[in-house]
Structures are given as C-alpha cells and as structure tokens.
C-alpha cells in the first residue's frame, strides 16, 4: 500500500530524513518510535504533503501512484490521512461546517453525491459516540479553545469520517491522560480493517499497550535503525532510547 524508498528530506538546508525505507501492506499496523529530533514528525508531514519540507532523494509510492507528486488535498482524497501532533486552531470556522466540507470533498473525488446537512449530521452522530466527544464541541470553531484531549479526539473523529485507507497518527497519544488515551486507542482500533493500514508515530511505548502493532521501527537521526515485532517496543521501554542511541554510536 505504501512503499517508502531511501527517502531523504529536510527543511531550509538542514537534512532531517537521511534515507528511510519502509513498506506497509494492507491490514498492517506499524509503529515508529524514536527520541525527540529523530525525524518522526518530519516523516509524517512529508507524507501529508507539507511544502515547507524539501524532498531531496528517494520515492514514496502509495497505491501504485507517486505520492510526492500529489497535492495534499489529493492525498487525503485518495485515502492517506494524517492526524496532527498539534491540530491547528481555525477561529471562526464552524467545526460541523468544516467537517461536512471535508467529507464532501472526498466524496466528490470518488464520484459520490455530497451529503446534505441532515445526512451528514446522522453520520457524525454515529462517529462522535464512538469517540465520546461532547456534541457541543462541534458547534464551536475548529479546535479553538479545545483541550489537548479534545483536539486529539477531534482528529480521530475526522479520521473516522474520512475513512482513510492509510492513516498516519503523529504522536496522537502525547499529552493525553490514560482515560483519553483509551478512548483514542479504542477509536483507532475500531477503524482497523483488512483493507486499510495504520502508521502510529509515538514517543512513548504506552500507546502500544492499547494499539497492538504488527511491526515496530525505531527512528534515530533520520534513519530507521532497528525494526522488529511488538516486543521491540517493550524492550525500548525497559532499556530507554539510550540503548539504541549508544548502540548506534558504537556501530558508527
């Protein structure tokens, strides 16, 4: 579904990703872990199409297309969704209005009829129940004045509404208390199917107690330095990132 080959990218002349190789197939859940500054968020932003990052080398194929050639809006319409680490506040834009515009943009891309207000509300009510979101939030401006937990749950609500085939979650667990974390993880687990895939980027092993990955990768200094099964996450938790960084330094 997603095939990243030797991806090198940076910002303003600074190299951040120094050759990433990663293949994700339908039905799989991958986790990427790594210390601060290892390039986790850059990878997420490059996949979503952030123009501030320059791709110097490498390729990303998504469902047989060159992902890097697609505009950000086309990527999500084609099913690649990014849940932001820091969801952006947009004062004055009503959340419900925004969500309907997003859903209809994706529907239109697939030749489906736009949902009217009534049908959309029905769909949204279904999804907010899943995420235990307060319906009052949907009358407010996008993310404005939301708590940290509300913002992250709102991201997962968007994911549920847009029903992506490849979801990238950028530190969706950061800053969440354990109850909010369970709600978010439960939401993500319910969206998992045999024909879609998830890439979970996280700083903490904790999230992986609730979302069980098929593969865990450790990102350090712009490279994946270690890959393994879910047990790798536990090993990391026990030994800390020093285990990897020191090991890396020794082999370097």
């Amino acid at each position, binding site marked *: 579904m997603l095939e990243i080959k030797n991806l090198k990218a940076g910002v303003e002349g600074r190299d951040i990703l120094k050759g990433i190789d990663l293949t994700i197939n339908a039905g799989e859940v991958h986790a990427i872990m790594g210390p601060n500054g290892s390039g986790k968020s850059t990878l997420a932003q490059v996949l979503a199409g952030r123009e501030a990052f320059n791709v110097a080398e490498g390729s990303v194929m998504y469902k047989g297309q060159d992902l890097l050639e697609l505009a950000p809006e086309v990527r999500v319409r084609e099913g690649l969704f990014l849940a932001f680490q820091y969801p952006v506040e947009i004062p*004055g834009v009503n959340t419900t209005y925004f969500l309907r515009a997003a*859903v209809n*943009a994706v529907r239109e891309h697939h030749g489906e009829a736009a949902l009217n207000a009534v049908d959309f509300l029905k769909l949204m009510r279904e999804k907010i129940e899943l995420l235990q979101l307060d319906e009052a939030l949907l009358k407010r401006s996008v993310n404005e004045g939301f708590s940290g937990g509300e913002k992250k749950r709102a991201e997962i609500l968007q994911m549920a509404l847009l029903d992506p085939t490849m979801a990238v979650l950028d530190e969706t667990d950061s800053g969440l208390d354990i109850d909010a974390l369970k709600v978010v993880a439960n939401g993500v687990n319910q969206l998992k199917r045999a024909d879609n895939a998830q890439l979970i980027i996280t700083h903490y092993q904790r999230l992986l107690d609730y979302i069980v990955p098929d593969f865990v990768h450790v990102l350090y200094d712009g490279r994946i330095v270690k890959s393994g099964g879910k047990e790798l996450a536990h090993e990391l938790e026990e030994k800390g990132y020093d285990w990897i960084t020191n090991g890396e330094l020794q082999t370097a």
Partner: protein
Amino acid sequence: MVSPANNAADRLLAALPTRGESGARFAALGFPTTRDEDWRFTNVMPIAELEFTSAAADAAANLEGCVFSGIDGPQLVFVNGHFSGKLSRVGELPAGVEIGNLAAAACEPCEAEDAFGALNTASFTDGACVRVADGVCFESPIRVYFLSTGDDGATANIRNHITLGANSKATILESWTGADAAYFNNVITELSVGDNALLEHVKFQNESMSAFHVAGLHATMGRDSRVAHHSIALGGRIARNNIRARLDGTGIEAILNGLYLPRGKQLIDHHMVVDHLQPHCDSHEYFNGILDDHARAVFHGRIHVHKGADKTDAKQTNKNLLLSDNATVNTKPQLEIYADDVKCTHGATIGQMNAEQIFYLRTRGLDEEAARRMIMHAFAGEIIARIGCIPAREELDRLVWDQLEGAES
C-alpha cells in the same frame, strides 16, 4: 500665516449655511493635520482640497439596491442630509416611541468638540431623531437610510439623536450609500441610553469609493445598560469613525464590533475612546479587517479606566488579514488604567493568510482556493456573527461574502 487647512475651513463655511458659535470654532481649529496625534495616520487633505458646495436639497433618489429592504418596520430616509418625506415610512407607532427627523432645531455643541464636531454643530441640516420612552421595548428594527446623489465636493452635515429611556429597548439599522462622486458626509450621532436599556446599533457604511465620510458616535450610557454597536465599513475613499463611549454608571456593557474591508486606495479608520468611570462595567472592542490592493486601515482603541472603576472588564482585539503586499494597517490598542482591581486585555495581529491553517484544511480534502475562502469567510464571519438582528446579520453576511469573492478573483 493662514495654513491651507484653515483656508479650506473658511471655504467650506462659506459654502454652507451656519449657525451659532461653532462655525468660528471650526474655522479656528481648521482641518486636522497628521501632526495632530489623533489624526497621525489619516491625512484629510483630500477632503480639505475639495471644491465645497452645499449638498442639494430635493434631489431625486430611490432606495433601489439598498440593504435591509426585506425587513419590516419604520424607515427614515435622508437624501444629501435632507429628510425625504416621500421615501420615509414610519407608520403607526406604539405610545412612547417617536421616530422622525431632527429638523434644523438648534443643538447643543457636542462635548469636547473637535473640528468636525464643530463643523457639524454649525451646519447640520437634519438627521434621524428616535426617542423610546421609559419601559418601552420597540421590537421592530428602525431602518435609517442616508443617500447621497453626488457631485464632487457636495457636503452634507448630518446630526442624529437616539434617546432610549430607562428599561427600554430598540434596534437601529443605518445604511450609507451614494452615487459615484467625491461628496463629503460629516456626521454626528448622539446616543443616550437610559438605565437598564438595551440598544443594538448597526452601521453599514457603503459610501461611494470616491466619497469622504467622517462620523462621530457619542454614546452616554446609564447603569446596567447595554449597547452593541456594529460598524461594517466597506465604502469611502477616506472613512473615519470616531467612537466615544462614556460608561458612567455601574454594570454597563458596551460592545464595539467592527469589520472593515478596504481595497483600491481606500483608507478606513476607526478611532475609539472608551471611558470607564464606574465599577463593574464591561467593554469589548472586536475589530477585524481584510485589506486588499493599496488599501489602508487604522485602528485606534483607547480604553481609559478611571480611578474607582474597579472590576472593569475591558477587552480589545484587532485582527488584520492582508491580501496584498501593498496594503497597510496602523493599529494602536491602548489601555490606560488608574483603578486597581480590573481585568483588561488587548491584542492586535496583522498577517497574511495563515499557511498552517491552509495546510491543515488541505490535508482534510479542501483545495487551496476553498481553504483560503473558508478562512477569509471565518475572519469576517466572526464579527458579523455578533449582530443580534438576524435578518440584518444574514444579509450583511451575504453582502460581505460577495465583496470578498470579488476581491479574490
């Protein structure tokens, strides 16, 4: 030596009928210059250079294309500063409500009169007069139309008096439009709002792009009264609103809410002074501007919290969105606080379209154009949403939207 500005004042007075001492005061003060702190960013020389004439009485006009036409209720119409009995419709009014024209009765000079105020007192021809008696709630919005038929230099001085008694309620919708000419409207509106009274005042200023508009709004408010003033400013080559609110009673709430959308070479200026004289009053200034082309805007918001005005809650925000590299904003939020126990905040932003917001919307499937529109609409909508009169709000939302769509294409 006679400065050009003073000379202009004399020429203007010679063109107009005048009364009382105020003419002499205007002549002495002359047109303000940019050396005057209150006019630092707004150069009125283009007004002073006009070849002044007295705006024509009895000019033919109609309300075609004017806003608020679908709203029922009394309507007053002034053409070039003169009352139009033909176009005005007041109808039956309940006891305690008077709606009409001020006529050319002598008026007290306004407090701390500046040059334009003195000119207005000396030369106003007419204006709206609305009185709502104690305890009367008048639910129908009162529409007041000001039409200018044009001619370069045609000058009209207009004086409005709006007086609400204690425990009363009213909604006033003003519309300013005119033919494509460099006419000059100089306006003073006196608002007197009694104890526990409620006033919503919407001013839709859509003068000709060549016209000049200088307007003073003086609000005096009684205890526990609430005033919401909404200034939607689209027109005028130079448009200046001087808003003065005196909160001289406890428990007052004053909301000054404004949206300006200058383009071309327009300059739109809001100059506010809010005086908190008593405890437990709230005042909020919310002004958003979207500027295109070579347009300029000025926001001057001064909140003066006097000694003893404890528990004041004052907030000023001014946000500006620049669609062009050549647009300019001068913003000056200002707090002067002499009381101890207050909550005051102020802030101003000037920026281009926020790239992070656009990217976020794009990652949710909206194309760049749709994302830009959504953000721009939101920016304007934030202000318009505060208008309580629903039909007026909906119509202004559409109008503003149409203008912004034009700006983008």
